[in-house]
């Protein structure tokens, strides 16, 4: 007999499916790539720079925290979760975001939202959303100015200009205003408060064929990536379907009620962060409810809150806030949605 470690008890099952956290995260990253490239096409290389910076910062912050918490570095650093957090965070940022904002957000996401809660698996709040909301509250101005999407102006910022905006701030550039503007949602919001009607607003060049210019196609890319994740069985269909369904129904309701001030369901779904959230953010298992019924309640909650915040608050988009709010009630939801055990007779 060969020498076997006598003290280790190997417990059944001895077979294991081809899966690991790394396997899951790698697939999420693959699914993000088309959307990232399309974003870069419409909004310039700033998108890629933000993503790279975020990934770099995230890996450093992760390594530091693992070191401080005396965790096995190799095992955890390359599980892919920090990269996914960094990419999702970067995708929420404007490509013109100064580097210190990116840095602050990532630090908050990885150090506070992830590791101070106990690291992967234990974090209560989605780290990417926590980081994003944190910088949104700290640096509101930097967060709302976006490059104009390709196809609206011929005036595209050069790589050098982008780098200078990111590393020294927008004030360093004289013609910054002509290179930037509000997002489709932000603009719609301000126009609505200026008593314009949706039909008028719809005529703005910021709108494309069925939603925001450029962003509509990016949203389609998220959708495709998400469907691939569904096929790969990385995410569960219930979550995207119930989330989209909720947003669709509630926007349809208000659109019927008054189509002059409420966006149509298609516009609602394909603008802002909804599609990204549908397949990449609300589906984060760690911060979602763990029971089958709980997950449905969780995504419906996010859908309703997103719509409410978007429509009636001062913020143009509400996904991040909605996700964090629902994260907070997950323990409660879990507790009340424990499924009936096989053969269990439910009383009352």
């Amino acid at each position, binding site marked *: *007999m*060969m020498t*076997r470690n*006598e*003290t*280790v*008890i*190997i*417990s*059944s*099952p*001895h*077979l*294991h*499916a081809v*899966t*690991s*956290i790394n*396997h*899951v995260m790698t697939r999420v990253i693959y699914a993000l790539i088309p959307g990232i490239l399309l974003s870069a096409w419409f909004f310039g290389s700033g998108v890629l720079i933000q993503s790279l910076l975020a990934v770099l910062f995230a890996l450093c912050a992760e390594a530091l925290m693992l070191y401080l918490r005396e965790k*096995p570095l190799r*095992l*955890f650093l390359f*599980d892919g979760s920090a990269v996914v957090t960094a990419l999702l965070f970067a995708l929420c940022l404007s490509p013109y975001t100064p580097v210190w904002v990116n840095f602050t957000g990532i630090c908050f996401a990885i150090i506070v939202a992830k590791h101070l809660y*106990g*690291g*992967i*698996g*234990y974090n209560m709040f989605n780290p990417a959303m926590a980081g994003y909301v944190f910088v949104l509250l700290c640096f509101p101005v930097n967060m709302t100015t976006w490059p104009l999407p390709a196809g609206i102006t011929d005036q595209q910022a050069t790589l050098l200009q982008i780098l200078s905006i990111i590393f020294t701030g927008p004030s360093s550039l004289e013609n910054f205003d002509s290179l930037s503007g509000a997002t489709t949602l932000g603009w719609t919001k301000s126009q609505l408060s200026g008593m314009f009607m949706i039909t008028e607003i719809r005529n703005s060049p910021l709108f494309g064929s069925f939603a925001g210019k450029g962003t509509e196609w990016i949203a389609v890319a998220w959708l495709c990536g998400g469907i691939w994740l569904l096929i790969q069985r990385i995410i*569960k269909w219930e979550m995207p379907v119930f989330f989209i369904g909720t947003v669709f129904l509630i926007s349809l309701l208000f659109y019927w009620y008054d189509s002059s001030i409420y966006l149509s369901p298609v516009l609602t779904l394909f603008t802002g962060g909804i599609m990204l959230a549908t397949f990449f953010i609300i589906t984060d*298992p*760690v911060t*979602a409810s*763990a*029971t*089958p019924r709980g*997950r449905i309640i969780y995504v419906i909650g996010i859908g309703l809150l997103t719509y409410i915040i978007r429509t009636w608050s001062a913020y143009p988009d509400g996904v991040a806030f909605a996700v964090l709010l629902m994260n907070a009630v997950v323990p409660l939801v*879990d507790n009340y949605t*424990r*499924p*009936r*055990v*096989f*053969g*269990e*007779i439910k009383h009352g």
Partner: protein
Amino acid sequence: MNRELYPFPGGLQIPPHKELSNAKTSLITPLPDSIILPLQQHIGTPAVPLVKTGDKVLKGQIIARADGYVSVPVHASTSGKIIDIGNYTVPDPLGLKAPCIVIEPDGDDVWFEIKPTHDYASIDPKDLQDVIREAGIVGLGGAGFPAHVKLREGTESAVDTLIINAVECEPFISCDDRLIREKPGYIVNGTRMIRHAIQAKYCVIALEADMPEAYAALKELIDDDIDLIQLPVKYPQGGERQLIKVLTGMEVPSGGLPIHMGIVMHNAATAAAAYRAVIRGEPLISRYVTVSGEVNDPRNLQVLLGTPVKHCADQCGYEDKEGQAIILGGPMMGMYVNNMHMPVIKTTNCVLVTSTYNKSPEMPCIRCGQCVDVCPEKLLPQQLFWHAHAKNYDRLREYHLFDCIECGCCSFVCPSNIRLVQYYRKAKRQITQDEQTRSGADHARERFIARNARLAREEQTQNNELLAGSDIGELDKQAFIQAAVERTRAKRAQLGKQENSDDDQE
């Protein structure tokens, strides 16, 4: 016959790997150098030896008698000489030793006198149970629960349906498949016999769709009296509660028994063994064992109980290689053993040699819910893990830890590679132990004294009976008492050791 099926929740599709072993005719394993027969090869009280070192025994002779109701005797698997009664390594996840009787075969394989019965229908169902019990028959599918107990339950209450379980859902294992193909008559007649014994209204033999030859073999022999049902392949369909759900749509209540719903289930191999015991008078002394995985000639063997596992593996071209694990049973529920000295016992259905067992490190749970989706008992494996980790035993009960059948589906799919089942086993053991401790020291002592007195009394009468009317020969009273003392000691040592190795694990 068409029958409506009701899929059970959860479950998995796992590559079956049955083709490695199921196409070849089974081989009769040559006699090994020694036969090691543990006194406990079943759930319940260990058997008590009736022989002493130096005795000559014949094939099929009772060498240890049942002790109490939930217990069965042990028979010599071949003729030879008893060379030792003592502690030997047995199939056990902790690598424990337990009392065994060791026979040195004389090579003649001479049968003890056996009493065939040509017509089971002429026997009163109640007597049939005794025959089956005396033949040492236990559930051959897994746990090894004495078969007569289930039969007695069946005769005492009205039985609606008898289910013969030929669903071999674990990957690699094909011993039932082979047994059915080679001896379909035993299965069908065994089924009819059990049905007669418990007077069941309906009778079903269920197998999975990946056993077409076995299906055809059975089909040929059955009439309308038995439903032969092919089920789509899904793990763990062979689980008692799962199979009942699939066939009847009924869920066995949490903590309840199938008999309360008028259902009795026996494994196909058990039915065959019971039939053989009645019709040919041959007790349970051999069984089919699959040897598969990384051996040169994976196949099924007909093995005498007590044959060392190594001897079986050698018949199939086993070579000891670095990094291989030996698993008794299937890859999902079987037990890892770190040597091959232990014998094949009544419940050993497979010897699997593999180097692809799960070695990846455990990561924190990411709450992905994969485990919840596949759990056939609809538990929340991830919550169970959480509470097991926190040693929160009240919550574990609340989350129905004891409904877990340890099928391993949850661990299989977990991306964080958490050995979920291992945590549950440990927690279950801990809870059971705590309960025993809690029941009070005085009470326990009282019971202990009473039990000793009873045992002594029982042994006395048994001895007298045996001395009066048996052909086994002179029996040494001292040896009996010694054995009883030994047994208690061994049991205590076992408990102690179990605790120790649990600590090692942490």
